[in-house]
């Protein structure tokens, strides 16, 4: 099936039709998406700061990662779900949009960096080195890039 075929099929589904014909549905789903990304971003920032020995430094890194990484996973799940609904509602905005694929690429990188840092953090008496601090800083830039790419989907 061609890209256009996928778009036509998705647009015709009853779920897509229901979202398109409900005036508040798309902004409502976007608000859920933004609230979740705010929580995810703050959790990622707190984890990255802790890896650099800053932020909530009084709590052991393993303990903080044990609390925040699963919470980030829950946020990501809601972001995937709300994002999927937005794609189903308006597939023409994303499926042929190169910025959307850039966003997905950055997302895979951010998740990989976070999982690696989480594995480092879970080691008993974990002591992050400069490379981990650099990776934590990079992950924040990548999360920021994901937000920027997400907003640019509307403009490209």
């Amino acid at each position, binding site marked *: 099936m061609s890209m256009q075929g996928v778009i036509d099929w998705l647009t015709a589904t009853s779920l897509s039709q229901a979202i398109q014909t409900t005036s508040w549905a798309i902004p409502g789903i976007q608000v859920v998406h933004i609230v979740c990304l*705010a929580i995810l971003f703050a959790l990622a920032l707190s984890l990255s700061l802790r890896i650099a020995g800053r932020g909530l430094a009084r709590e052991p890194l393993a303990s903080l990662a044990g609390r925040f990484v699963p919470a980030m996973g829950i946020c990501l799940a809601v972001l995937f779900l709300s994002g999927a609904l937005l794609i189903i509602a308006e597939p023409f905005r994303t499926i042929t949009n190169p910025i959307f694929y850039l966003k997905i690429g950055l997302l895979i990188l951010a998740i990989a960096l976070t999982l690696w840092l989480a594995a480092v953090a879970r080691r008993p008496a974990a002591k992050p080195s400069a490379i981990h601090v650099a990776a934590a800083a990079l992950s924040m830039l990548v999360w920021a890039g994901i937000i920027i790419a997400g907003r640019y989907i509307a403009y490209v």
Partner: protein
Amino acid sequence: MSVEFLEWLQGTPLALYVGETWFPLVESLHVIAIAIVAGTIFLVDTRLLGLVSTKLPFTYVSERLLPWTWGAFAASVLTGVLMFIGNAVSYYENTPFRVKMLLLALAGLNMLFFQGVTFRSVAEWDLARPPAAARAAGLISITLWCGVIGFGRWIGFAS
């Protein structure tokens, strides 16, 4: 606010420049700033509700996170003003925009009341479950900031 002033504002070279070239980037930076503001506030508020970070004193959590909140708030005001001046008249008349500003003011009042009244007894509950007034402040704050994000997103759909 006078329409003449708003019209002058959106005719300034800066407003025209942002509107023609930089709007999507300024908007993206606004979203990042809001994410840090609201996200860190949610972390402090859920601690205030006694739900998370309960092994850390409340004062410690707020002291370590709120500098980020304020820095990002300054960035969100700056980027917000840059977006506003590009279309000052229509934003000023936009109902979701007005509701968002009202909710921001209420969030500020909630914070001032908490700082001025509830927080005075923090020594008694810094490591314990915060009292009802503190939990109420946390819940009100979370609700208002969700509202700020909600009406903020609605601005673009109502203009």
